[in-house]
């Protein structure tokens, strides 16, 4: 009983009138433009400052100058940010719709922790060093923890508080496991302390090639779930009456969220709160329709992730602040604000 959908989410069911739809399409285009600008900033800003001219040169007319090399490097990182950001945003939006809980988030539900625990196990016990190996471990960890949280949270009777507590408890247990490994294995500690904060600096062409298929498949699946999730928002009975397959939708939603956050975590480590914040912001101007929430989340989440990454590069120049740290420090207060805004009776 933590959170119920605000009344207006239930009230609106008729298709949006044409002028509102036009506004939403326009808004989506504006968001895409913002995304392009942030992506350009992500290429231009860093330890080596590049002029727009140099960026242009590196992007479309590369000739192997120093600037071109820097641009190529930052392009990989930016593409990884775009993909991972979209994945986290979509996963968050799907989980929030699935659990009917605005506080759901892959990080909060322990899915990221499961993925990183599995990756850490892969490094220490199986000697896995390549990303293609990581991805499978991360998937396994994310899927196992996702299923566990879902089960412990009460599966069909899941309430927001139960899921949040189950996720936090499991994250805490996995965190203890990570520490035990780090004490015993200095080499693992050396790698993991960078891995566990979440960073885009690992972005390279081979990294991206490995995760792209999973991210694309997961994104398509998530976008395709918009209609059934809309039906589920009205409550199980109504959804059933409308012809939605409840269990199939639930299973596919968990699958999409797991694939997306597992792949994103495999590529750049656990990143908190992107999946929590963006769908929230998006819902405030699109309303409850998942057919708009999901595309907007897919476009605006990379804006946040890349923005946080750029900020991390500016704040700590010439070093950089990992993007996972920036998003947690920005996202924590937002989470607390959301918790505070609910009425006491609902909490």
């Amino acid at each position: 009983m933590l959170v119920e959908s605000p009344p207006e989410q239930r009230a609106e069911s008729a298709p949006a009138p044409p002028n509102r739809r036009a506004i939403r399409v326009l808004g989506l285009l504006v968001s895409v433009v913002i995304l392009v600008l942030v992506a350009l900033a992500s290429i231009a800003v860093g330890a080596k400052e590049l002029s727009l001219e140099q960026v242009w040169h590196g992007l479309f007319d590369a000739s192997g100058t120093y600037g071109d090399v820097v641009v190529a490097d930052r392009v990989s990182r930016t593409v990884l940010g775009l993909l991972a950001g979209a994945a986290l945003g979509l996963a968050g939006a799907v989980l929030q719709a699935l659990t009917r809980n605005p506080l759901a988030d892959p990080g909060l539900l322990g899915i990221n922790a499961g993925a990183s625990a599995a990756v850490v196990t892969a490094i220490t016990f199986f000697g896995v060093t390549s990303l293609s190996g990581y991805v499978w471990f991360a998937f396994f960890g994310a899927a196992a923890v996702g299923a566990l949280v879902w089960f412990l949270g009460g599966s069909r009777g899941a309430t927001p508080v139960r899921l949040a507590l189950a996720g936090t408890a499991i994250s805490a247990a996995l965190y203890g496991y990570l520490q035990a490994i780090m004490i015993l294995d200095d080499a693992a500690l050396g790698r993991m302390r960078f891995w566990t904060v979440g960073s885009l600096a690992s972005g390279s062409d081979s990294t991206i090639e490995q995760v792209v298929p999973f991210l694309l498949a997961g994104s398509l699946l998530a976008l395709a779930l918009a209609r059934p999730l809309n039906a589920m928002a009205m409550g199980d009975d109504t959804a059933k009456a409308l012809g939605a397959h409840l269990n199939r939708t639930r299973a596919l939603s968990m699958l999409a969220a797991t694939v997306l956050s597992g792949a994103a975590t495999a590529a750049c480590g656990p990143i908190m709160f992107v999946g929590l914040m963006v769908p929230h912001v998006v819902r405030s101007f699109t309303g409850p329709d998942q057919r708009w929430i999901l595309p907007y989340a897919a476009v605006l989440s990379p804006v946040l992730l890349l923005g946080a990454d750029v900020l991390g590069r500016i704040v700590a120049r010439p070093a950089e602040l990992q993007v996972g740290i920036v998003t947690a420090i920005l996202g924590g207060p937002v989470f607390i604000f959301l918790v505070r805004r609910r009425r006491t009776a609902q909490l």
Partner: protein
Amino acid sequence: MKTNRAVRTPGGLSVRLDVRTFTVVVLLLVVALAASVVLIGTGDFPIPAADVLRTLVGEGDAGQEFIVNELRLPRVLVGLLVGASLGLGGALFQSISRNPLGSPDVLGLGQGATAGALTVIVLFSGSANQVALGALVGGLVTGFAIYVLAWKRGVHGYRLVLVGIGVSAIVTAVSGYLLTKSDIVDAARAVVWMTGSLAGRDWDQVWPLLALCAVLVPLVLAQSRGLRMMEMGDDVSYALGVRVERVRLLLMLSAVLLTASATAAAGPVSFVALTAPQLARRLTRSPGPNLVAALCMGAALLVTADWISQRTFGADQLPVGVVTGVVGGVYLLWLLVTERRAGRI
């Protein structure tokens, strides 16, 4: 056997005694002390329990006296005090948040203390005492922040837990940042500290902890009637004459102090604060916060876990926090399943 018995003194004072709770408390004390004696005897230089007892009352030989009184006794005392503080602090938080998972671990007090300690380790390369001070400050600041942020015409249990989760994420990010900034030697030291360890604790850690417990434990126990009524809901307890917010503020402050100082002394030993009150409640089978039983259970748990870690992994190979983490993790999952079945969370 009657479960409740009134004990009367000639002066006209009387106290109600729950026989089962009383028995459990006595048994837990016996377990804690017995485990302490065995733990003192365990190590690279094993001492039989009889010799340990003889040395403790001052009749051992010089070598044993040095090992027992200077090396091992302070460590065991720190373990007992830390366990007791964590058990009591956890019972208070769980009762205030009316949630079996509302322990300092989940609320982020441990993480806050960790961030404070890491600041000292990484940025200032401080001594052990400075690290403890940093942890204390970090824990207190985090506790204060959680209380203020959860305050909205009163502090409500679920909001407290969820705000705690948010704050915990922020301070965890700070710790992660500090870990990436440090060199590998500091990082290794930090990770051992973060797991919670009793290794190398001496009398300097015992006295402040003992003094704090001597002040706070009676204070908390004196308020336990109010706390027990508050479990029935704020409105009912207000009607029964409990000054709800004042009692809650006082008890939360005590719980934060207890947890933060225990964390400063031994690091954030995980799960003791979470499990001790729950185990105690299941043993006494009595409603209410079960403060005394939780306190004894915490002490017994921590000392036993330390003994297990020394026996299984060898002396000071793995800190006690690893054992409590593994045991606690399993227990936590079981707790979640049973609580779900009972429909309580």
